[in-house]
């Protein structure tokens, strides 16, 4: 993890927003999750593009849980943890997927037009940090995604700058 991101997450200000959601693994839940994200960041007055980006990345991540990990079995459920300050938006998805090996997620070839395979690509393009943490024993997966909302050094205005890699 980039040192700057690590620092932002570890030194959250006291007025940071913390919330956990436990939701059903069904496609209907996705719109609810987007509305809850909007509710969590409303007071930050993000640009429409930035708000859409974090909704998009979170939806892609949850869609994969519903589709790949749970194979559309909506008796399954998963957890979402949202933590946000003015500087950073952190969303973590907790779910079960015993066989999952993150390193096996294929990287799409954008010149070859296919009907799928773009979800993780979108997530990685939008978010400043993406990490799948698996626990082989329990089959529990924790997908952590971080988006920098505002670089602290930038003086005024909403910044959509990316961190230098």
């Amino acid at each position, binding site marked *: 993890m980039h040192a700057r991101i690590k620092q932002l997450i570890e030194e959250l200000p006291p007025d940071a927003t913390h919330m956990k959601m436990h939701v059903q693994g069904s*496609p*209907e839940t*996705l*719109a609810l999750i*987007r509305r809850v994200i909007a509710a969590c960041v409303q007071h930050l007055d993000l640009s*429409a*593009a930035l708000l*859409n980006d974090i*909704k*998009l990345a979170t*939806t*892609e991540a949850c*869609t994969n849980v*519903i*589709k790949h990990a749970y194979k559309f079995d909506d008796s399954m459920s998963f957890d979402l943890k949202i933590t946000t300050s003015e500087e950073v938006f952190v969303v973590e998805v907790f779910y079960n997927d015993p066989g999952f090996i993150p390193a096996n997620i294929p990287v799409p070839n*954008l010149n070859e*037009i*296919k*009907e*799928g395979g*773009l*979800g993780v*690509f*979108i997530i990685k*393009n*939008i978010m400043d940090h993406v990490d799948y943490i698996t626990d082989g024993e329990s089959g529990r997966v924790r997908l952590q995604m971080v988006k920098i909302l505002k670089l602290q050094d930038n003086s005024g205005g909403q910044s959509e700058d990316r961190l230098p890699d």
Partner: protein
Amino acid sequence: MKIDCQIDTEKKVKVFYVDGELDVHHVKSLKSEIMDSIESTGWTYELNMDKVAYLDSSGLGMLVYLKKEITRHNGKLRIVKLNEPVLNVFKLTKLDDFFELG
């Protein structure tokens, strides 16, 4: 998801006004609506996305499928009135060149 359809039989154009958020939950209804209306040959299918505020990879996948099916029937797919955030998803995935966007 609400879909209204306007058909111009003379010009062979079907315009679909899509209203909703195109995620995995909602792509199915749009896909089947359009698939059910594909004519044997030579039609243009226009998707008016003015009322679509959200689209993700599930929506893109469905559009790729539709474009291939429509092309197979010698038809054309045109996607118009894209909102900024929706257009951005096409650009991010470099699909803005694959589709005819307007």
